[in-house]
């Protein structure tokens, strides 16, 4: 039985609603429709197979003026793991000084993803 999966392409303001037809047994994508250009096809495939996002958040610091330091993952992470990752982020504490780009937490949840500072903390 083929199933239908809907995704919205975010590559341009058109925001095409794209429907993928997927074979439930083999998980093979049989058909993609609704995209108004080629880019949309690739996007829909990626969104179906492995939707990823960069996670941005803040971590605590020992600075009185700047109690928080903004951070992000150094590569996109699976969308469905973002909430779980926030529990790891919530436990990170950094001591000044921290340089923009510095790794503040390594290999989160063993996923080969690091958390990096996106601001200097002096």
């Amino acid at each position, binding site marked *: 039985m083929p199933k239908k999966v809907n995704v*919205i392409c*975010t590559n341009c*303001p*058109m*925001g095409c609603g794209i429907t993928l037809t997927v074979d439930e047994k083999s998980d093979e994508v049989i058909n993609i429709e609704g995209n*108004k250009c080629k880019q949309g096809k690739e996007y829909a495939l990626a969104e179906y197979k492995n939707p990823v*996002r*960069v*996670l*941005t*958040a*803040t971590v*605590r610091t020992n600075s009185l003026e*700047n*109690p*928080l330091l*903004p951070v*992000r993952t150094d590569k996109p992470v699976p*969308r469905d793991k*973002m*909430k779980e990752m*926030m529990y790891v982020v919530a436990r990170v504490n950094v001591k000044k000084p921290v340089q*923009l780009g510095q790794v503040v937490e390594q290999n989160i949840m063993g996923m080969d993803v690091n958390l990096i500072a*996106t*601001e*200097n903390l002096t």
Partner: protein
Amino acid sequence: MTVEDKNIDILIIGAGPAGLAAAIRAKEEGVSNVTIIERDKILGGLLHQCIHNGFGLWYFGKDMSGPEYANRFINMVKDLGINILLDSMVLNITPDKKVTFCNKNGVQTLEPKAIILTMGCRERSRESIMVSGNRPAGVFTAGTAQRFVNVEGYIPGKEVVILGSGDIGMIMARRLTLEGLDVKAVVEVLPFVGGLIRNEVQCLHDFDIDILLKHTVSWIHGKERVEGVTISEVDNKMIPIAGTEKDVKCDTLILSVGLVPENELSTMAGVKLDPITGGPVVDEYRMTNIPGIFAGGNVVQVHDLVDNVSWESEIAGFNAARYAKGEMFKEGKIRLIPGNNIRYVVPQVISGEEDVTVYMRVREPKEMVRVKIGDVVRKAERIVKPSSMLKYDLSHEKHLSKLTEGTKEITISCSEKGK
């Protein structure tokens, strides 16, 4: 900077992305004293609290967070030897360009050769959209909530309703959800989402947050603290429909209902404002009606992409430098008039003798349209939306030289094809 150091060529008011880009561009033109004055303790403006990514995709070809984008410019400002006055609030500007400001040394006045206005925007509040109900604690603008959560380290509440589907509201919906709050719904009075499609998908759909189009918050409940809101459907005139009310329990209401350019200083200086954009009327040099006063960024028009803020302000910086060096500009003889389905156009006036990039926004979303700039440009667009600014390059050689002698107005329109 000391009080004696008053020989300023260009004074830039506000150190957000607009001010930083303008300062860098002006300094690169070889102007000796470029000074930025900022009321905050740090450079970067709004970007410090915009910790999410999505900045710089166009300007740097890289997906950056707000602080990362800001730091690129801050480093350049420092390397170039641009003067910086922090913790200093500008109080007044006169039409002859005397700028009064106040900081811990007291009130002082500067007399720069040129000024660039880059004060950014302010958020619309509960008062500006007149939400009915009680006046309990727990009603925040999205930017205030963003500052609490991202900079100061407080969460605004536990259960949240967001009114308005602008980008800031959607970004806060995701941010608060990730911080463990329960975002019950995003409520939008219009029949379409106000922000970018990317934010709708990545901030709302990703987290299964409901979006209620053609709905509004018609009452705020609670005495000391928000206890809930009433959400109603609205008719085509945006009036709540009786009988459609639904009560939703929440302790926080966040408003993301638009930004207004911050132009009190501009008005004091005699700068003419465009009633639609709320920003100064500018020409292709980003100069206002007051010679030597320029403007760029959100103070001119509410931008959705910081990349355009930087580009626009570079135009102001470049031309302020030319002005400070004594160059003369061509007269703005031609008005650009918003026509069918066009809400506004920036710049509002041009000389017709130089290349120019025009920015505009449509009133309503439409598919398969043709944008016409007078008779000189016709451009087919698959889709236009109020949330996405349109941008066209007009070249003097290819387009503007084709105008008939003595043209005083060019109307810009966006019509469905075949009509």
